[in-house]
């Protein structure tokens, strides 16, 4: 585990993105995931990938089985496909919610209609991902969801290494030195620090910091992150804002 952050940021080519990601993920807390998906290959792929990422995954092939499994077991997260045989995904979510089950749900859908996301979230889903998706995107999202579900007291202060963000005064300091940030940069950093130690994808940033659910064509997020990085990491030996290649970004103090 030693030196993983360094390899992640500086020695990309030697370590390889997947390896680095695997390293990062190994350091995580293990999650128990239920995948309700009728396509066997997709389900198998998810199960295998989640296992490789250090999580355990159960698979249900239809809505009824999925609902039963969700009711009789405790999961950290549910990944539910919208279109399922016997009982459709949205009904499964609605049923669980009316029973008071608050387990975070990520809805997967091959539909991409304008209203689909709204419908999915209204049914009680916590996040919505349209097929086809990148596995790294899915992983980052369910980890963020699982973390959100853990009841946390409203933190007024985020600290990663010597970088401190005070949510009450909106002040950011690094090693005691104040850093001037634009409002948007502040919110970007706030979101990254809230998910410190976790991969945050570009889409997640776009959705959570800007509240946009569309494809921005160019990698606008990269430009914003690199500006933020120049403000918080420039002139310091230890970078805190890392690029996780093929996935997104992460704020983490390597030495912790």
């Amino acid at each position, binding site marked *: 585990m030693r030196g993983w952050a360094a390899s992640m940021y500086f020695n990309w080519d030697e370590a*390889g*993105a997947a390896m680095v990601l695997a390293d990062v993920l190994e350091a995580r807390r293990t999650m128990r995931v239920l995948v309700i998906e009728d396509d066997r290959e997709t389900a198998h792929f998810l199960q295998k990938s989640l296992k490789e990422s250090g999580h355990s995954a159960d698979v249900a092939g239809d809505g009824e089985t999925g609902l039963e499994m969700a009711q009789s077991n405790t999961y950290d997260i549910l990944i539910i496909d919208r279109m399922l045989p016997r009982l459709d995904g949205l009904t499964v979510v609605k049923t669980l919610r009316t029973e008071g089950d608050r387990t975070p749900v990520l809805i997967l859908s091959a539909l*991409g*209609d*304008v*209203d689909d*996301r*709204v*419908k999915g979230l209204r049914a009680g889903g916590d996040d919505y991902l*349209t097929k*086809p998706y*990148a596995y790294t995107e899915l992983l980052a999202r369910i980890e963020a969801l699982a973390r959100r579900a853990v009841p946390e007291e409203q933190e007024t202060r985020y600290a990663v290494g010597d970088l401190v963000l005070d949510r009450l005064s909106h002040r950011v300091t690094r090693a005691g030195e104040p850093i001037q940030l634009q409002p*948007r940069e502040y919110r970007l950093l706030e979101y990254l620090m809230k998910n410190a130690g976790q991969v945050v994808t570009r889409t997640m940033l776009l959705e959570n910091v*800007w509240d*946009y*659910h*569309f*494809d*921005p*064509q*160019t990698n*606008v997020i990269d*430009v*914003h992150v690199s*500006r933020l990085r120049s403000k918080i990491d420039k002139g310091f030996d230890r970078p805190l804002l890392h690029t996780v290649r*093929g996935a997104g970004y992460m704020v983490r103090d390597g030495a912790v």
Partner: protein
Amino acid sequence: MTALSDLVFKTMATQAFRLAAASAAAFLVVSALIVGTLFWQTNTLLTDHVVDELRGEAAELAREATGSDPVAFAERIRLRSLTTGSSLYFLSDSAGKKLAGNLRSVPPEIADSRTGGVIRFERDGDPLGIERTGVAIPVTVGSSQRLFIGRDIEEQLALAARIKRTFLWGFGALAFAAVIAGIAVGRSVLHRIETINATTRSIMAGDLSRRIPVKGSNDELDELAQSLNGMLDRIEQLMNGLREVSDNIAHDLKTPLNRLRNSAEAALRDSRGEEAYREGLEATIEKADDLIKTFNALLLIARLEAGVVEESAEEFDLGRLVCDVAELYEPVAEEAGLALTIEAEDGIRIRANRQLVGQAVANLADNAIKYSAQTARGPAPAVVSVKAGRNGASAQFSVADRGPGIDAKDRDRALRRFVRLEKSRTQPGTGLGLSLVAAVARLHHGAVRLEDNDPGLRVVVTLPLAAQTN
């Protein structure tokens, strides 16, 4: 012969002919009734007149006979008989011997009748002995004599016959005209419908450019032809659109698919082994992501063109959204050596899907930056100008650049799905940016206009303002 009978049969089978025939039949029945009534009325009038006259004379003679001597009465009848005219008399004694009158004998038809009737008679003085028709009634003139008086009705009969003939001829002419008119109408309608049929068949056979000829008479068939032509225009337009889209899909999806396949193949052949495989796989994923982007944009446009977004529509401030999105692109513009200016009015409330409108602004900003970047090396930094404001009763936002612009003749085409003008074929992008903007505008009952920014392009999007609510 078969051709003729075929035509007759076809004509008779048309709805128009059937209608014409039915109306002709109804017309004939009505005119027969009218003609019949007229004839009957005329006839009755003529007959009644004669009969009334006869009765009057009979009453007069009956009065005269009662007060006078039979010989003198016979003399009076003889005198009356001498006057030329249509009056007929026959006086006999009780044995039947003729005493006076211009009839040769008692007409047998009424010899025993008390009321009289139609008779065939010969005049007493008629040397030719022509038998004529008349009416006669008996007159009571005491027991010693018998008197019949009558009228020659040959002339009335001739008049009646002439009237009858005239009526019948007229009726015949009417019937003939009605049938001819029916056939003519049937044939002309049949001919025009046959034209429509023939055109339709050749269109079904694949010639979508054919149109039904319009006679210019502005009648129902012309109207039908015009409606059908309008429908055909729309279908042809859609077919062309579809063809263009599939051609472009073929180009825009096949090319990257092919590149993806090539890079996978190249990696597989690479002798460096694992490292090369990894690079190849990464490149493959990247290319697949691009494909997915194109595909998603395509699906989104198709759905926008089909659907409504009531559920996800919300009221928001257009100016703020435009500012927000433009700010997202500001650093990108700056890195490309461009200045991005933003001007937005306050309080432009619109009701729309915020994400879609945001996407539209983003696409325009992205395009503007992409195309201006080529010309940004000029002396002054090129400017991308983003504005939001009101235009009369509409909300409006625009993105203007100093790029190469779009020729006036290409502007309409540029808004269509998948159209990438030749110049930009080599540029990165899905080619769907502008068409998506157009689809978003259409979905919200707005419009997109491409204008000359001299130099450069200005894209103006108008959207309806949110209805005033309290």
